[in-house]
Structures are given as structure tokens and as C-alpha cells.
């Protein structure tokens, strides 16, 4: 079937069996390279995308459900100014997630920052539940998210002045 999506600001018409998982469709037909398929259960968050504005696991979405959807992948997030809040905190704390989990972790952090201006530990830990890549330490992750939130608050305050 033909499926219309808006991917990172561009309209695309994809052809796919309706039950193909969105993650596989985006990887094969739309050539999205930041998505990981580690569980196919919606737990590992390697396939995270923003789907009509909300962070979801694209392995749980069949292609037919994505018709007319607005999708932002990590490639799209990288072009936004907001990502600098996160990358700056990574640099400050020498927090360096591996290539495998970096897109998923950054997408999750961005989602946390959009939901909470001053996230607490438990909100961060809950958001990261299921992300099992142990390439980085959890304590530095918490610190990094909170610092990113700080940068985001400052930037938004400066914009509002």
C-alpha cells in the first residue's frame, strides 16, 4: 500500500505492506540510519521517533498506522537548535554514549526536557527504563539530563527577554 508521511520536514510517499513495522520501513525505504532494532517490543527505545509530536517506539507501529503522520527521527532532531542544550552537557561531563544507543538516548532526553523543565531523578529514570545499553554510567546520565535542562531553561529565558 502507499503511505504518505512527513519525515523530518519532507513529504514522502512510501510503498509497503501494511503490517511492516514502521522502524523497518523507515530503515529500508526512507534510508533512516539512526534507528536500532534491538527488541521489537517497544522496550529498548533504539527505534525512538517523534510521531505527531510524541516520542514512541517505531517498532510498535505498523506502516498503515503511519499514514499522514509527522515523523521526526534523530536526523531531524539534529537540525534543531534544541539539541545543543543536550550536546553541550555531554561535552561538559564527558558523557559519551556509544554509537548504538546515542540516537535513542538523545531522543529520550529531548522528550524529557520537553515534558519537564526541571526533571527529577525519578522522572529521568522512568523515562530511561528499558534502555539497557550500559556504555555510560547512570549517575552521569542523570547529571547530564539535569544540566541539559538547565541550558534549555536559560536559552528559553534568554529568548523571552
Amino acid at each position: 500500500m502507499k503511505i504518505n508521511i512527513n519525515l523530518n520536514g519532507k513529504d514522502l510517499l512510501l510503498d509497503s505492506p501494511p503490517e511492516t513495522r514502521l522502524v523497518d520501513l523507515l530503515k529500508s525505504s526512507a534510508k533512516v540510519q539512526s534507528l536500532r532494532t534491538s527488541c521489537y517490543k517497544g522496550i529498548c527505545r533504539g527505534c525512538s521517533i517523534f510521531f505527531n509530536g510524541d516520542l514512541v517506539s517505531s517498532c510498535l507501529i505498523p506502516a498503515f498506522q503511519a499514514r499522514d503522520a509527522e515523523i521526526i527521527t534523530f536526523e531531524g532532531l539534529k537540525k534543531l537548535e534544541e539539541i545543543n542544550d543536550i550536546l553541550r552537557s555531554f561535552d561538559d561531563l564527558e558523557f559519551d554514549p556509544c554509537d548504538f544507543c546515542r540516537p535513542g538516548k538523545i531522543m529520550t532526553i529531548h522528550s524529557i526536557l520537553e515534558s519537564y523543565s526541571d526533571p527529577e531523578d525519578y522522572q529521568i529514570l522512568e523515562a530511561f527504563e528499558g534502555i539497557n545499553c550500559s556504555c555510560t554510567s547512570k549517575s552521569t546520565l542523570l547529571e547530564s539530563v539535569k544540566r541539559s535542562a538547565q541550558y534549555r531553561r536559560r536559552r528559553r529565558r534568554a529568548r523571552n527577554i
Partner: protein
Amino acid sequence: MAKDYVFLDSVNIKNVLFAHIIRSSIPKGIISSIKIPKLPKGFYCLRAEDIPGKNSISVFSQGMPLLCDGNVNYEGEPILVICGPGETDVLDICNNTLIEYETDYSIYSFENFSRFQVLDEKKFTRGAVESKFKETDQVIEGEYTTRIQTLPITYPLGAIAKYKNNILEIDTASQWPFHIQKTVSDICNIPRKAIRVNIEPYHHTYDEKLLIPSIYSALASLLAVKSGKQIKIIAEPSEILSYSIKRPEVRIYRKSAINKNGKIVAEDIEISVDIGAYPLFTDELLSQLILGAASIYSITNLRIKALAIKTSSPPMNVFKGCGIGLGVFSAETHFSRISVHQKKNPVELRLEYLSKKNQKLPSGGILKQISQRELLNKVSYESDFNRKYSAYEILKKSQKGKLEDPVTLRGIGIAIAYTGNGFTRKREQKEAYSMQVKLDQNDKLYISSSSNGSAPGNIWKSTAGDILGLEKESIEIVKGDTFILPNSGPSFLSNDLSIMTNLVEKCCIGIRKQRFKKPLPIIVKRSFKSPGDAVWNSEKLKGMPFNALSWGAAVVEVELDPIFMRPIIRGIWTVFDIGKIYNIKAARSTAESEIYEALNWATGGGELFHRPISSYNLDEIEKIKLPAISIDFINDSKRSSGGISQLPDAIIPAAFVQAVSQASGIYFDTIPITPEIIFKYLEKK
């Protein structure tokens, strides 16, 4: 931001053929028929009889079939491979392929194994064990079990192969690229010099990238040669979870003879490990289990027997190392059990059996400048172990018979162990471990090695920079393939950190000697030479088994949620002595990550961040948080680095189990401990 890496499963190639493995759905039997749907043009099927060379994935002297030859020995055994231009079509064909079996055969289990299932055996004896047991009245015994563990996360596994102009080119992420080259050569009957393995970087591994990539590379290569096309074969996550690697189940039965003065005079230990359907790395596994189980305590009379048991499970062998931690679990848990029986403080009992000077390993290797007593004293001081242990013993006694009450149940446990670098079998060390370093005319340094894990790269750069006075930006780790990179052996058991970093040092010292005397470029290559039998005799298990050792001690304090039976971590204290530390921040980060992994294993994936439900107000929502973890190092820069990744697995589970035992008043002797298991043991009590 640096360019993002593209994993193999995301690589898009024009006109590639997708391949998928069809696996056995039964654990034991004989294939009686295979019905494959009609293959459209451009689709291919690969079976065992299509293999021109050896149908075998071999490691040293052991092996397993690449494709099943008709006799199925485990569920999931690869039987055939289908490939074609459309991935969906290939999956459809695979789903519609019908395989029938004759299944009236007994399945080999680990639970009650019989003698003929023992594939390999190793023994270690010291002193007069039998006579000591005859003399003594008191015997303390226990059986300690570490259950199968599956991967907590699946990283991409697979390979892309093409055969063009008589060169077979393979892309894969592997801890052992030259093993792939050899394996594919033996299987495809193509000379090694015509096989190029492009070494893709990987980031984290549980050692699934040690052998499994050889399987996928061989299958992709066979199909590439057969079809003349490029082949991509990528394992699905469920496939990786079920059929790649698992930590094998190990049962260790221990018996300690205590004399009338309360001294442990002899120990008799029997180890059995479930290695699955085919033996691989068996000798190493048995050696390391023995070394771990032998413990570090001075017990004069010691007898250990280790058995490798064949079962109808997928092959199990390596998983975050080679089993030393499983042996340590039994040793440390048993030692604490003895301390409870003798009503002694576990730290004091341990100190009694640790030599004050030049400690000897049970195998006889002498350790100089090792700080075990310091480690133990430091970790017990920082955690306030002695006071808490006594307090929780009193608490335990006062709780007897009152477990329905949601009262405070706390416990604390301690463990100390070492892990080692590299293979113990020196024969295995004859695998080439080579490193090449080149300094060019622009004062740029190139480090070449087939080891491609990303972690040691920074350490090599830092080491080279220190020796030659170069900035990190002018040092490059060369990426490439088996045609241009030297064979650096398997990236396994922290070899990259100890052996290879040592080689980087030697190469750079070699360059330093020639620099300003000889014209550039200067190229220096060094290889590792394994010490002979005089240092370590792997048959007799005598001497110093490893190239470098890492030591660690841990204290784990838990509280048992009296309602949901969840063990909640109140605190973890660790002290490590891993020799030279190249980057303290990275070491700390790795230690913390590995501690959480060890906890994840010990709790069976339990929820680690909760507080006991009775500690909340009724209407309060639960706010999970990280447990307090303290990590300390003793930095001995004179000793080569032993790496840290295996240590938490060795010490955390044992300390955790002791803590849960004290909190609940029950002797636990198994990992993982889940609330259901706690409940089961409580019921029995």
C-alpha cells in the same frame, strides 16, 4: 557532532540479496523431510551438502557444525539458509518451509545428567584431602548454582559478503576478525589471502561478537560464492536472544572439613557446567571455574573436579569472560556460610586465611605487591561493615517467626576476588597478538591493530602520546581490514587493555629509540610471546595463570521489601586494584556500569531503583532513585592494567546473596534471586 556510525543492519546496498536462517524447532532428532516452497528466480537455498570445505566452526581443537547435517542436537540449530532480493519474500519462504523430524530421542538435560554426557573433565588436587575429611567431625557443605543468563540487550549481529575478482570481501563487527578469515577459508575452500574481512567497529559486547560473526560470515560467504551477488544476513533480535550466546548454568558443590579448633583444613569441590550441545572453549571454561572456585584463601588440602556436561541446549561457553566469576560466587558465598556457622565476622574470617606476606594463588603462583588485605579492610571500613553486620545479625534473630509483619529486614554481604587477563591456556596464546605503530614525516602516529573495540583506543592514544610527546589529535587508530592490519588475536578477556596496550608501549619505545636517528617514516611491529609452562602449566593447573590480574572487593547492603519480597539495594561499596589506571574517569564509569549489570544478573532483571513499599506513605507515588554506589581505586601504576569489566560480575552477586541471606534468615545459594525464589525458600523454611 561527529558523523553517526551506520550499523550493518542499516546499510543499504543496491541489488543485495537478503538471507535468513531456518533453524530447528526441536532440541533433538533427525530431519526426515524438508519441503521448501518453489524458489523464484534469483533466490537461493544453502544446505550442509552445499558446503565445499569443512562444515565446521572451530575454535582451537573444538568445533560445531555450521549447518545441521541431519542430526539435530539443539533447538535453533541452523538447518538451511534462504536468500533472495526481497527481505519480505525471503521471510515468507522461510515461514512456509516445512521441516519434519523423527523425535523419539532422549533429550540431554543438565538437571540429572548421566556419565556419558560428560564431555570433558579437569582436576586439581593439593595435599591430602581424603584423610583430612576422615579425621574431622565437622563438615560444612553447600551447593551453589548460577543459572543461565541471556543477553540483556541485543546489538546488531550479522555480515555482508561479496565475491568479486576472486576476492571474498566480508563486512562484519567482530572481536576476532582473523578467526573469521580462517573459518571462511576452511569452509569455502578459498585461500586466506583471498579473504578480506573489513573490520567494523563495535562498542559494547558481551562476547557475542567473538564467535557468532564467524557463523554469519561463513553463511554469507557461501551464498556470495554460490549466487555471485552481494549477500546481507542480519540476525533478528529474537534470534540473537535465543541462539547466540548465554551464560551457562553452573552447579558447584562444596564441602569443607573443619577441625576441632575451627580451622578449615580441607575442601572438596565438584563443579558441573552446562556447555550445551557442542563443546567450545571447554578447557578454558573449566580452568577458570576451578581457579574461581579455589578461592584466594590459604587452605592446604584442596581437591576440585570440574565437568563439562553436554545437553540439548544451544552451545554455551563465553559470556562476559570465561566463567571465573561463577567459581568465585560459590567460594565467597560458601566462605560466608562458614563464618555464620562459626559465629565469626566474615571479614575477620577472611583475614585469617589471607596471607600477610606474598600471597600465593591456590595454583602456586606468587603474587607480589598485591593488596588484598588492604582491599578488604578499606571496603569494610568505608561501608561500616562490621557494625552493620552485627546489628543485622541481632535484627535477624529478633525477627524469627515474624515475617508477616512488615518490619525492617536488612542484611549486608562482602566478597573479594581476582579476575585475570587473557587465556590461561598458553597454547591459545600462540594466537598471534601483534601491533604495528608508524610515525610519519608529519609527526603523525598511526596505530594498527585488528582489535577494534572502541574502548581501548583512547588508552592507546594516551599511552602513545605520553611516550612520544604527541597530542591526541596527531594519533590515529587505523581502521581497515585483515589485508592491512596485523593479527591482534581475539579481543577477549581484557586483552586489548593489557596485552595490546603493552604492545603499544613497546612499539612507541621502539620508535622513540629510532626517532631523530633514522629517517621517517619509522615503523615498529611487536608481538606478544606467551610465557612457557614454567610460568603456567595448564594441564597441571600450576603457577600463575594469567598475564595480569585485577582485584576487587565489594560490600552490598540490602533491605528486603517485606510485602513484595523485593531485595532493595541500600548501598554498594567497592574497592578495586586493577594495576595501572590510564583514565580514572573511564575506569569509574565502566565500574559503575558493570556493577549495575552484575546487579541485573543477580536479581534476574529485577527493579533496582525501588524503595520498600512500606517506606512510602499510602498516597505517595513512588519515586525511584539510584542506589548509593561508592567506587574506589588503589592505583598501582607499576603493575600492568588488568581491566575491570569482569570484576563486578565476580564479586557483586556473592555479596548480594549474602546480604539477602542475612536479611531473610535463609541461606540462599543461587543466582539470580527473585522475589519468587525468596518466597519459595521462605515457604520451605
